[in-house]
């Protein structure tokens, strides 16, 4: 990643904020923390952010108030609402006010990472942006995959999975996390491991027939790791 993206994490739960910040730093972001609306407003004036992670339930008010302020000031700031309240009306209200995405607590870091990157890509109109990793080239907007410059046909799920792995390199991603990621479109309660297994198996098979390296490693049967030397 060429440019380090500044990310503002508005979160009143300190422990969660600490983990999030550590995770974001690890993944090449430059995160800032605000524990309430007041300090968030202050930081927004001082720094140039690519994205904001906004918790709704803050000690000094509802995070909703900040959505319009952020979007009015600079529309390209990616805004992801993070809330423990899985209330549909809140979700709709937030998205209508201009938020770009909505994550319900508890979420998994790789999921957050993937969504952050996607939001930043989208807002910076990096339409033809390529994600290049050795022999693998991904074109997220067109959902195209090139291996050694050759087109590889992947299903939407497989492409999503590969993009997810590429966004979360060298991390152990548990089956649960992957299951959540894969089932996020299903608005679903509990997804099965074998679905995850089947998709990863198919993806690995396709990658290997295109002579790509075997990046996706099984970790003790409990998760996977996209290993890049």
């Amino acid at each position: 990643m060429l440019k380090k993206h500044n990310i503002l994490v508005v979160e009143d739960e300190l422990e969660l904020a600490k983990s999030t910040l550590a995770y974001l730093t690890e993944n090449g972001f430059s995160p800032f923390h605000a524990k309430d609306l007041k300090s968030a407003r202050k930081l927004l004036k001082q720094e140039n952010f690519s994205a904001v992670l906004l918790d709704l339930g803050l000690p000094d008010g509802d995070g909703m108030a900040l959505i319009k302020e952020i979007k009015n000031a600079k529309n390209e700031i990616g805004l992801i609402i993070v809330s423990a309240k899985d209330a549909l009306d809140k979700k709709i209200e937030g998205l209508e006010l201009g938020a770009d995405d909505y994550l319900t607590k508890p979420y998994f870091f790789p999921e957050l990472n993937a969504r952050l990157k996607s939001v930043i890509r989208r807002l910076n109109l990096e339409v033809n942006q390529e994600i290049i990793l050795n022999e693998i080239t991904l074109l997220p907007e067109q959902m195209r995959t090139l291996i050694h410059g050759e087109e590889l046909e992947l299903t939407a799920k497989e492409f999503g999975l590969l993009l997810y792995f590429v966004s979360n390199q060298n991390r152990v991603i548990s089956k649960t996390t992957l299951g959540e990621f894969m089932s996020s479109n299903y608005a679903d309660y509990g997804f099965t491991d074998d679905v995850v297994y089947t998709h990863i198996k198919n993806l690995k098979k396709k990658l290997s027939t295109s002579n790509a390296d075997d990046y996706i490693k099984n970790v003790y049967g409990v998760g996977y790791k996209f290993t890049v030397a």
Partner: protein
Amino acid sequence: MKLLTKTSLNFISASVIFFLVGSMAMYFSVRNIIAKDLQNRLLQQQNEFIYTAQQNKVTDLVSELVFIQTTEKKRLHSFSDTVLIVNEKYILYRKLVFSYAQNEQDYKVSILLSQSESDKLIMKIAIMNIGFAMLFFLIMFFVNRRSVRNALTVFYSTIRKLEDFEVNQITTLSLDTAEIEEVKKLNEVFEKMSAQIRQDFISQKEYTGNISHELQTPLAIISSKADELMQADNLSKEQMEQLALLLETTNRLSKINQALIFLTKIDNRFYTEGSTFAINDLLKEKLTMFGELIADKNIVLKLDVLDTTHVYMDKYLADTLLVNLIKNSLVHNKQGGELIVELASNRLSISNSGNPLTFAESDIFKRFTRSEHNKKSLGIGLSVVQSICELYGFDLQYSYDGMHNFIIKF
């Protein structure tokens, strides 16, 4: 029975009874008065007779209605009724018999007075009485009806407003101000009650929201810490497995929490707004969404959409309903099994070739009922389906005939 009908009926029955009793009493008292009058007139005639008899011979005084006979008896004096046939008509007469002495001869004098005139009078009075009374009651009936109806206008408006009252509407229940003390009081009680119900509803809403928030945040911390720990390089297989299990369990806990909150929301009618739409397209969309999962399990999908079926539902709930039903039919299906989806004339049936149930058929929609074959399932999806069907009054049925059949009648 309507209040107005009831009061009207009461009024009519009471009126009829009082009218009958009153008329009877009046009839007899009028008859009595007239009989007395008749008697007085007879006594007057007796006096006149005696006066005339002093100058004339008694026997000359015989006339059409005065009969004189000689008699031995003295001191006769009595009233009685008698009937004379005049021109072949029976005519009722009142008769006064008394004795009169002249020239040492006692005479029995009978004076008759026709009662037909007074009978006619009684009849006329009776008719007039009935007529007036009827008119009076008729007027009273309508006046009473109108006044009761007027007085109850506010009452009826209250009933209408209560019928339309829904606890999750933004507007509070505001009832008309009534002139009548009782209705006023009733409205006050209703307004108080509705405010209390709304207050409870809001607290409950907040409570579920808080529970959700208070549980989800710690869960988020646990899973983020577990995820962080998993990234350590020097973990043994066992440690890694334990962390993975911790993550999985936390996730499961969070899902259960969310699902229960969702169920509570449905049961408490948080989702009442909706729109009418054809469910056909949504069904196809959801089946497409599950396309990969269907392919993964080599499941044969037989889709048969005959009619356009319109439903009135919240879109989000419709979505959840279909997703849960389809997912259930896939997750519990066999590898290479069958999925039959039929939509015809307001009836949706989804059948799958999963293994037979390992629990009682009647428990299928109960929360936390899980199949032995799939212990990872939360056992909530079908409860959600049932709650949504109940909310909209859809008929949901389950049957097993080698296939598990779920049938919804919209």
